């Protein structure tokens, strides 16, 4: 029986090496495929029972291994929507029928509808900011939608908050005439500044802010809508002050007194109530000097470009210079990435042994960060593949020699009878 065994064993060896050569062929073919993970063959023995006196040669069985967890080199590109993961996470993508898959192939480009689609035709998904700051659903694909950047979208945000920091001159004369709050043509003020805020439609409203010293360490703030101003002299405005407030300064240090008002709140016409924080105002012995002004909100604007931060938040920058988050791109992980089930297009689904898919955000745990403008090259090394190819070739030849020897011996055996 042993001669037949010997021939069968060498055939299994040849099959195994042919298998290995197949993975080498695929690895080399995909050595430049973005997000491709190299495959390899693991061998194990199959033993045929024998006795102490007689050895029955067994055979070799092969198992395909895929090095999914092995990070590929990041190569940098000029496209912002090229994404790579520096860590062990996966992008969650949808195919055209909406089934979810995991992938690390991040060469996304926007299609005609603004959806980000990769080279294999899978759409990137993320959590939308449309209903506030999103949170990840840990164990399912619920809430994920296809990331879509609609360049024709016009957006405006009304101002709700502002900050105004200035120094009021301590040595200024006390205003003895009519204060700006009276809105008379003869109104006198000590200092004036102005600030742009946005209404509900994104229209710009310029606020004239008057500061008038009414007594030592006491200043009156009056705010008017510049659109109502009289030509040249400003006063009188067509309508009264939007808000008036009194700031009291602490004579000990020139800062706002603890008991003083520290902000003003006014209603922008056709807009939201705006609170302007003045807590950092000072009254020191120098000139009137505005040191900081900030307001939120923006005027109507188209999306100019998008950028993706390394925590996966996709920001749209509008052509008026403001930035809004649109989506947050999650990263999925499994316990054993190497045992995920692979499909065409470098995508994976949960395998029987891989463990459950868990979704979280970049920088959480070992998911890693998202690199924008980069791609993960395949983790195939040509030199490695070529050497294993030579090895397989030699092993295959050796196996075939064993087969030939068995065959020759059978020949001898058959020729014993003439």
């Amino acid at each position: 029986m042993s001669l037949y065994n010997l021939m069968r064993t060498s055939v299994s060896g040849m099959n195994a090496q042919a298998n290995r050569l197949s993975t080498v062929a695929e690895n080399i073919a995909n050595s430049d495929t973005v997000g491709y993970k190299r495959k390899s063959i693991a061998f194990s023995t199959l033993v045929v029972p024998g006795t102490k006196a007689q050895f029955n040669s067994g055979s070799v069985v092969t198992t395909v291994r895929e090095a999914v967890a092995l990070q590929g080199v990041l190569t940098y590109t000029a496209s912002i929507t090229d994404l790579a993961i520096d860590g062990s996470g996966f992008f969650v993508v949808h195919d055209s029928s909406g089934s979810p898959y995991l992938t690390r192939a991040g060469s996304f480009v926007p299609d005609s509808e603004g959806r980000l689609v990769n080279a294999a035709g899978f759409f990137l998904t993320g959590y939308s900011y449309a209903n506030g700051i999103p949170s990840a659903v840990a164990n399912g694909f619920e809430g994920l939608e296809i990331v879509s950047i609609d360049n024709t979208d016009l957006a405006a945000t009304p101002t709700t908050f502002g900050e105004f920091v200035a120094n009021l001159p301590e040595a200024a004369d006390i205003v003895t005439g009519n204060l700006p709050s009276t809105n008379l043509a003869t109104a006198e003020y000590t200092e004036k500044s102005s600030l742009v805020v946005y209404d509900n439609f994104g229209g710009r409203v310029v606020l004239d802010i008057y500061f008038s010293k009414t007594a030592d360490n006491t200043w009156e703030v009056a705010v008017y809508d510049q659109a109502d101003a009289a030509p040249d002299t400003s006063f009188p405005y067509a309508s009264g002050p939007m808000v008036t407030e009194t700031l009291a300064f602490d004579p000990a240090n020139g800062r706002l007194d603890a008991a003083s008002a520290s902000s003003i709140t006014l209603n922008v016409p056709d807009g939201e109530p705006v609170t302007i924080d003045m807590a950092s105002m000072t009254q020191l012995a120098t000139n009137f000097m505005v040191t900081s002004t900030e307001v939120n909100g923006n005027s109507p604007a188209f999306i100019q470009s998008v950028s993706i931060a390394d925590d996966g938040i996709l920001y749209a920058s509008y052509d008026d210079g403001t930035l809004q988050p649109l989506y947050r791109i999650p990263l999925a992980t499994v316990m054993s990435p190497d045992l995920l089930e692979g499909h065409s297009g470098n995508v994976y689904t949960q395998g029987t042994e891989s463990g459950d898919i868990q979704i979280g955000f970049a920088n959480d745990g070992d998911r890693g960060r998202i690199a924008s403008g980069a791609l993960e090259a395949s983790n195939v090394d040509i030199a490695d593949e070529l050497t294993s190819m030579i090895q397989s070739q030699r092993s295959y030849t050796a196996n075939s020699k064993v087969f030939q020897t068995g065959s020759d011996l059978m020949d001898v055996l058959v020729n014993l009878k003439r």
Partner: protein
Amino acid sequence: MSLSTALNIAQSSLFNLSRQTSVVSNNISNAGNENYVRRSAALESMNPGVRFVSVRRHADVELFRSSIQSSANFEAQNTLHSHINGLKSSIIGANGELSVSSHLTAFHNALQVYSASPSDGLLGEAAVNSAKDLVRRLNDAANAIQSTRTSVDAEIGANVDRLNSLLSDFYEANKEITKGTIAGTDVSNALDRRDTLIKEISKIVPVSTIQRANNDLVLMSNGATLFETTPRDVTFTPQTAYGPSTVGNLVRIDGIPVDAGTGANTTAKGSLAALLQVRDTVTVDLQNQLDEVARGLIDTFAERDPSGGGLPALAGLFTYPGGPGVPAAGTVVQGLALTISVNSLFDPAQGGDPALLRDGGANGAGYIENTSGAASFADRLIRYNEALDAPIAFDATAGIGSSKSLVAFAADSLGWLEGYRASANEAAITKQALAVQLNEALISESGVNLDEEMSRLLDLENTFEASARLIRAVDQMLQDLLAAVR
């Protein structure tokens, strides 16, 4: 590390090198551009390999701030100086030959000669002609002042227009910068352009800046907002023509009037405040001085009752449209220099008689002093001569004292303008030196140094060669491996 990784790293190195070289070549091509700020390419090392991160711009914010301040000071001083120079050449002339003072002296001399031989009618005629010269000079100088004010006013209008257009350019540049900063693109060119605009704006009005998020800038000028998200309006209505009593309109930035500078070494920063100073202070003072000279002449040569009786003093040789009454003493009458004239009764060219100067009586028989008609009567002429040298009251608002002789006042007026011009000139030289020095410091700090760029280029060349050699080595190794496969 595998061979493929080595290849990838060498490739990204070549990619980075090409971008670094483009930054260096951009620097070199802008070596002579004083508004250009040197850039350098920043790299970040990654595992594995190197990543090109951003272009850094080596701007020196503090030096830039001092530089624009000093150039605003110089611009103001220079504007003031050139206008004072213009006024000087039209009112005084290069060597004082056009000055009211020299004409007054000539008239004084002619009067003295006449008083020595009062019987000589020709000398009387010469004295009156000299008076006519003096009056013409006063009229011309007053006209020159008002036309200067008109042209300065037009210049203010042009400056305001330019400021508004610079601010709208600033809006565009600022928008591009904030947008680019958010998107993470290289905004160095827009930053250069915005800095150039700040330089231009600070030549017109002083500028201070507040930096906000995303490289957004707020521009303030002496507490008035010039630019905050949007440009603020700078408004001004020019006057089409100026008379002595015309008051120029205010320039308002965001509703706040711009203050004029003061002093010959002016406190003005930026050309606008200096122009306002010329229009509202210097020329007005000068006009007041001329008006006071004119009033002094009318007053000194007025005919008074020779008998000491109750007849009122009336305008004599010099008169004006408000005559024959004499203007109130010690108070400036605006525009008098423009309207003063020689009484036609004295002017032989208009059929008048110069002898009235000797005898009096232009305002009627009651004012005749030489009642006997003696041809050698010189008392009146001698008194006039003395009066020209005797102190009289002047309006202090003219700025050169309140009690001095008419001749001295005219000479002081000349000296005032000369002195103003000299100290404006001196201050201009000092401020120019500072501005030039700071600008050169700024250029050497943030400008391009060709030597540095060339050595950087050599470095890049070496690195490029090394990377290329690495690729060749890996290629050779792979070829050896392929040769092993038969």
